């Protein structure tokens, strides 16, 4: 399986993918962090879905990593696209047959691919975390927000918790993308369905149907990234979202193992 990971990393490291992904991560993180700090006094709100996050909240030990946690949803979409494209491209390019000739154990291919993409997700999230914290310090100075509490042990704990939660959520979104990639076998179909589902269908239904967000993997992963919410506990969000993903993975793994590779 280690051979599969090594092979996948050659593909993931290619500049056209890695540089554009990291550019997307930098853009998303910078945008969310800038909005959070620069609109701190705006009556329109400065957080996700127009939530107002005041100076007092930003001055807390968790303030340094708050913008990073707020970036999780968009980071997740980036991960969804990468995982879906990397999986489905093997069908569209016809390269799956080459992979299976060199490694006929299909589950090893699947697990190795997932492991390599998780490493890629770790790099994405690490970049985002570092950038978010650095920008937070910079913009806190601009907006005269106190950073005294940001260098305390509590702040380090909050940053570490945030990192782990965002990583879990980002990988969760990625797994969702991989499931769609294996199911639809086309990057365009997998990505468009994944993005529409997460950004539009889940969002709209959650706004109009009470408590339905308790059953949507995308919404639950977003709660995981935030470390829990008032309505949904962290534990519930984590276990329910990953239970959905596990069931999805089992189904597509079965299909992947049994399906003829005829293209």
């Amino acid at each position, binding site marked *: 399986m280690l051979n599969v990971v090594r*092979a996948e990393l050659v593909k993931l490291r290619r500049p056209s993918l890695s540089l554009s992904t990291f550019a997307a991560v930098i853009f998303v993180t910078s945008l969310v962090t800038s909005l959070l700090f620069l609109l701190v006094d705006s009556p329109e709100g400065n957080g996700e879905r127009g939530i107002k996050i005041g100076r007092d909240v930003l001055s807390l030990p968790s303030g340094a990593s708050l913008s990073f946690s707020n970036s999780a949803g968009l980071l997740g979409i980036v991960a969804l696209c990468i995982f879906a494209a990397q999986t489905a491209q093997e069908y569209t390019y016809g390269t799956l047959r080459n992979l*299976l000739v060199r490694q006929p154990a299909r589950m090893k291919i699947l697990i190795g691919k997932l492991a390599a993409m998780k490493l890629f997700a770790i790099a994405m999230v690490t970049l985002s975390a570092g950038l978010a914290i650095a920008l937070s310090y910079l913009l806190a100075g601009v907006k005269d927000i106190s950073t005294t509490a940001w260098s305390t042990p509590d702040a380090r704990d909050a940053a570490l918790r945030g990192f782990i939660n965002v990583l879990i959520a980002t990988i969760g979104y990625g797994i969702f993308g991989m499931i769609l990639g294996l199911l639809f076998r086309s990057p365009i179909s997998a990505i468009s369905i994944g993005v529409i589902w997460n950004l539009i269908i889940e969002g709209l239904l959650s706004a109009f149907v009470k408590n339905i967000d308790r059953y949507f993997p995308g919404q639950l992963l977003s709660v995981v990234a935030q470390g829990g919410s008032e309505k949904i506990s962290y534990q519930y969000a984590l276990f329910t979202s990953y239970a959905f993903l596990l069931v999805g993975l089992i189904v597509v793994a079965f299909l992947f193992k049994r399906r003829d590779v*005829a293209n």
Partner: protein
Amino acid sequence: MSSPLALDVADLSKKYGDRMALSHANFEVPMGSICGFVGPNGSGKTTTIRMLLGLISPTTGSGHVLGESITEPGKYLPFVGAMIEGPAFYPALTGTQNLTVLAKLGGFATDSIQGLLDLVGLGDRGNSKFKTYSLGMKQRLGIAAALLPNPKLLVLDEPTNGLDPAGIHEVRTLLRKLADSGTTVFVSSHLLSEIEMISDYLVMLRLGKVIFSGKTSELLAKQQPVIVAKPEKSLDLEKLAQLAKAAGHDAIIKDGAVHVTGTSDFSAELNRASFTAGIVLASLTPVRPSLEETFFEMTGE
């Protein structure tokens, strides 16, 4: 066949819906030979190759590759190199990177990559992206990828597609060299003329059925030599054909000439008989039909 077998299939079939892509195929390929796998497009060649490589499961039948059952491809694929249905690689990666992906995946040393690129004539294009390659270069990269494991069995599906005549000659020479060094080569083509020169064995498919399987020399023995006689005046065509038939040979009129079944020994006799009958021959040529023509004769096309 007494020599050990690189491939053998028995009653192998694959059905897609109501259509039999391959129907009860039986054939054997001995070790160290070059076996041409020939048939028109859609005759089931790629389906067979995919089953041999564990990519699709047979509907019925069994098969062995290098002595191992095709139900356990993990046991033999490390010793098999393959290019199936044209070269498939990642467009954004270079030739070298594409081979690196497959080398790492198979656990092969990556330091052989440059040598393989040199071998297939891509030594100076290894750092170019695959999407910039011509069709011929893509085929060459596919062959290089198939050679990565230093295979005991090389399976190539239409490897000369897109190659110019010089490239086709190079591939033939390469395959012969590999076979001489002990590698079994199983090469498919829809053009028998492309591989008849280098094939020791032939497996011929038509409409999903094996219509010939055996030594190329056995097929050559089925060839009927022909004498093509062209009279000076086309009015003499029928008369000339009758002369040949009277001497006990089959004769047909085709393309302004009489095609007489018979060895070149009959040429002199036919020439003499024509002269006696007052027919002046513009040309008299003994022709050995190609395997392709023999194949079409066998398949009734």
